[in-house]
């Protein structure tokens, strides 16, 4: 029978190969799913995973979609590494967008690019505020941060809904629930003419690189890794657990808030009922695909961004339902978790009875 045997040491090679293996398995399972929906799997996979690369505009769109995913994925990678389960990034993203939006709507005549500083700072603060609640409730009262951060995501969604239908609804929107367009100052500069690629993309890469450095080279990074691996060992080393909880939540929340501010500023240009907050859940997969490493999360964000754009293309070209993308993403995480078993365990054949 098949059995698992512990490896003497976790395999570094398989830790890197596991995401690739998981992607291949997801492609195979997706092909089967599309065939089951009565479509030609090869042409559908072509639309999903090749069509986003075919022209310059689409290639730039991959980077546009990857930007918020990379920012949030990098933050979540560190949080998960610390064993702090912030799954409310979607809510922190929304709050970041709303706090930044409040700045933008308060300055309808803004022209100077200097306005971006308070705008982005408000986004970070909004995300941090929303993440501070689970941090406070966990460190003070021991309340589970998974449930608190998730509940606050629903609250954030309702707050957004109230604002766009109530106080922030534009008088020029013909009753549609959306705010006024932001002034020009809040639209992040485009860096590639003819596309929507904006400065947020290289900024996200820089931030991820800085975070990778922080994790690898600083005492804070070391303490996060120790506490995540073993809170007891962390306590003996003198690293406080609550400090780590605060750090992980404020960092991942702040980055999610920044992602929200960047997305509504650069891509949407106003506050509307759907501001793409579901990327906060996709970012969980991004973090795992990137091996809980901030730079890995950038790669993970690119992979997921391709699938998101491919999914939009498939919706238009093949009339495939948009939920197919969600199924792909869920399967990807399943396969990834299954493949990760190989990092610590070896699969061996053992005859029954022989132990």
């Amino acid at each position, binding site marked *: 029978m098949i059995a698992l045997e512990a490896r003497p040491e976790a395999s570094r090679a398989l830790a890197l190969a596991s995401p690739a293996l998981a992607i291949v398995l997801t492609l195979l399972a997706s092909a089967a799913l599309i065939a089951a929906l009565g479509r030609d799997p090869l042409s559908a996979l072509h639309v999903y995973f090749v069509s986003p690369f075919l022209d310059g505009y689409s290639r730039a769109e991959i980077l546009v979609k990857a930007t918020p995913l990379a920012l949030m994925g990098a933050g979540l990678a560190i949080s998960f590494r610390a064993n702090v389960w912030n799954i409310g990034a979607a809510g922190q993203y929304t709050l970041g967008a709303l706090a930044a939006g409040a700045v933008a709507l308060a300055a309808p005549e803004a022209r100077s690019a200097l306005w971006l500083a308070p705008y982005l700072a408000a986004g970070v603060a909004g995300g941090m505020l929303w993440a501070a609640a689970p941090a406070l409730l966990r460190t003070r009262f021991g309340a589970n941060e998974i449930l608190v951060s998730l509940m606050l995501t629903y609250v954030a969604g*309702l707050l957004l809904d109230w604002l766009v239908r109530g106080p922030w609804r534009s008088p020029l929107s013909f009753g549609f629930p959306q705010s006024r367009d932001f002034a020009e100052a809040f639209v992040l500069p485009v860096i590639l003419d003819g596309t929507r690629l904006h400065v947020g993309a290289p900024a996200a890469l820089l931030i991820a690189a800085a975070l990778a450095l922080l994790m690898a080279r600083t005492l804070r990074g070391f303490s996060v890794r120790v506490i995540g691996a073993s809170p007891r060992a962390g306590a003996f080393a003198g690293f406080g657990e609550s400090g780590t909880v605060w750090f992980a939540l404020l960092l991942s929340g702040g980055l999610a808030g920044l992602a929200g501010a960047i997305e509504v500023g650069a891509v949407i240009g106003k506050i509307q009922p759907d501001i793409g907050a579901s990327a906060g859940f996709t970012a969980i997969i991004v973090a795992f695909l990137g091996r809980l490493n901030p730079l890995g999360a950038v790669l993970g964000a690119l992979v997921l961004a391709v699938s998101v754009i491919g999914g939009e293309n498939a919706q238009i070209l093949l009339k495939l339902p948009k939920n197919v993308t969600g*199924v792909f993403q869920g399967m990807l995480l*399943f396969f990834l*978790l299954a493949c990760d*078993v190989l990092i610590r365990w070896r699969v061996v054949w053992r005859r029954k009875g022989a132990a």
Partner: protein
Amino acid sequence: MEPFLISVMIAATPFLFAATGELVAERSGVLNLGLEGMMLMGAVTAFAATSATGSHLLGALAGAGAGVAMALVFAVLAISLMANQAATGLALTIFGIGASGLVGQPFIGQPLDSLAKLPVWDATALTRVITGHDPMTYLALAMAGGVAWFLYRTRAGLALRAVGDSHGSAHALGLPVTATRYAAVLFGGAMAGLGGAYISIAYTPMWGENMTAGRGWIALALVVFATWRPGRLVAGAYLFAAVTQAQFYGQALAIPSQFLAMAPYLATIAALVVISRDKALTRANAPACLGRPFRPDR
């Protein structure tokens, strides 16, 4: 007051199903965060089966079956392959949201007859509140009672609690740790499926994307709130249901509906804080091996 209490009886049912199942899984030491995904799959499958066969019984069974199928994926990954339970549960929810939306697309906007209600015993206010509901309302209560009896009055229930409290000792005593956890997780899946089915074929007989609206997550909080004890879980389910229903009575107060809709989520946070701050209470009752994978050393 009577209409309010009647609506609370109904609204508590999905919480009762899902949280009772999760309580059993957690008591065996497995934390399944995929409740929301399992409920959604249960809801869409039950709706599809009911509208295909016209039988609510078959629909509910199909919903339970869908929950079991989802739970099996979780069990293979989290129990056999020792994957991180939190991550696996999240994957289950992400997958369930996508897959239920995909399967449910043809059913959006379709009508369905609600599950028939039993006759009301119109003697007193109390009988009018507690009688006259559909059979699933009573099944949920019976299941919670059955689980309480099982956990505290049977040998198998004692074994299940032992597995959750110390899987090493349980294994040394010859108890089947892996098989017990599989059974507990699959039971949890069936119950989550029934909870979802109740929403789509009885509570609001229709299918809509994400129609469980976070009830799976609230049910997870309910298990913590109940400190893993079935009796407190029943009380908690009615309390949470009362909070969800109270929002519909707040509309007269000229508060924007969005703020009223926040009430269940904020109340969940408040409930978690109240229970979690009492360390002695949670530590005495929480299964000691909750979330820890087990692999027997030969």
